[in-house]
């Protein structure tokens, strides 16, 4: 019976998760950096999240260095569409300054969220990080 339910959920899309950090598509031209090797410039992105997303605690992270200069919208759009598809809701960030703080975040369920942050990086290779969040 449970198997039938799971199959129905899969067929209707209701059971699809799709917002697990590990399954999110990498940004275009992004080369993933192992967390342990990510330097201080990457970890400044951690601070951006904790500074701007009220009550957020980081529970996971993926870091990327882009192969070319790319705007925030091309980086964020696929994730934003996935979030929309999974009925995740945008997290309000009152302290975010549009354009200066390149971050979007969504509440995936009552206690979990997802954030994408970008920073210019050096020599035209922007840094991007995806974060799994624990939210209040």
């Amino acid at each position, binding site marked *: 019976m449970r198997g039938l339910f799971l199959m129905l959920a*899969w*067929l*209707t*899309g209701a059971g699809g998760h799709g917002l697990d950090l590990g399954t999110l*598509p990498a*940004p*275009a*031209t992004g080369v993933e950096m192992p967390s342990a090797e990510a330097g201080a410039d990457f970890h400044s992105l951690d601070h951006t999240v904790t500074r701007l997303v009220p009550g957020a605690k980081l529970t996971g992270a993926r870091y990327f260095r882009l192969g*070319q*200069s*790319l*705007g*925030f*919208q*091309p*980086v*964020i*759009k*696929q994730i*934003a*569409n996935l979030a*929309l*598809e999974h009925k995740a809701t*945008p997290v309000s960030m009152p302290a975010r*300054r*549009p*354009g*200066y703080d*390149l971050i979007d975040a969504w509440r995936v369920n009552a206690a979990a969220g997802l954030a994408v942050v970008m920073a210019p990086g050096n020599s035209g290779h922007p840094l991007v990080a995806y974060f799994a969040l624990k939210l209040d």
Partner: protein
Amino acid sequence: MPNASISSIGGETGEGVARALSLQSQQDSIGHWLSLDGRLTGVSGAGSGEPARDHAGLGLRLEGAAGPVARAYRFDAHSLWDKDGPQRDDIQQDAFGDCYFDATMAAVAQQNPGLIQNAIHYDSQSGQFSVRLYGTDGKPQTVHVTQAEVADNIARHGSSTADNSGKDQRIWPAVMETAYAKMHDSNPADGLDQGYNAVINGGWPRDAMQAITGNKGSEIRFSQSWFEPKNMALDIMGRKVDAALAHGRPVTAWSVPEHGQSWLQKLLGIPAKQDGLADNHVYSVDSIHKNSQGDWIVTLRNPWHTNMGVGEGQDSSSPTIDVPLSTLVDTGGLEAFTAGPAR
């Protein structure tokens, strides 16, 4: 003469001054006072308000030798667009989620650049730009955009290419986007965060068309009656888009997620067909034509200035993409075209 400024002076002397101003503008976002013989005085305010004569209608008013001063600003009429006027390629959506506005600006720049040229005026005395936009009631509003607000838009990675090129050129999208945000800000004196937040989290193509042209335009959607062959319905749709472009109407395309897989496709592991467009996005329509097989092909321009990051298997660094109209209809990836007013 609208949009004339010190940098639009013809002749050797004027061009020399313009070059001096341009050099200065690379260094500083704040205006300086400059005597017309090209010497930077560094004095603020002296003699600016007493023009003596209009010099050959070039928009520059000269004073006597003792006090010929005018203020040089980082941005002026010369910074707005190239000699060919506003171009669709002047748009590069970076940080803000206002594709609906950026794509509409691009469509208008392609089809009716004069509308944009007539909508933005530069005041060389104040250094401000005035922008005519339209409210939701269809009434025109004049929004004044300061030098600092333009610089702020560029620093925020707004819709111009100035933040990408590092050059204060072709800034009209920054000026217009700033005006649009300012129109939605109840207290611009404290910065435009509120206004930007109101317009950069998505919007409707028809609202942008209304704001820029004063006319919401009309939507072109696929429509097929029960007795009508699909090819005929597609042909009617293609002809409507073609006619709109031929009449100088700016046209945008609103993309949405393709139809998901059917249960049978899922069962068989067949992926849903993708159209190559970013979903929930707005493109400007460059052109439409019939290919040798008789299929309508639409050329769409991504306001991102690239098609990297779309993630539907056709990423490319080109800002344009050709898509068969039938693909847009079959996949359900097109919500509607929006065609604005004719020239």
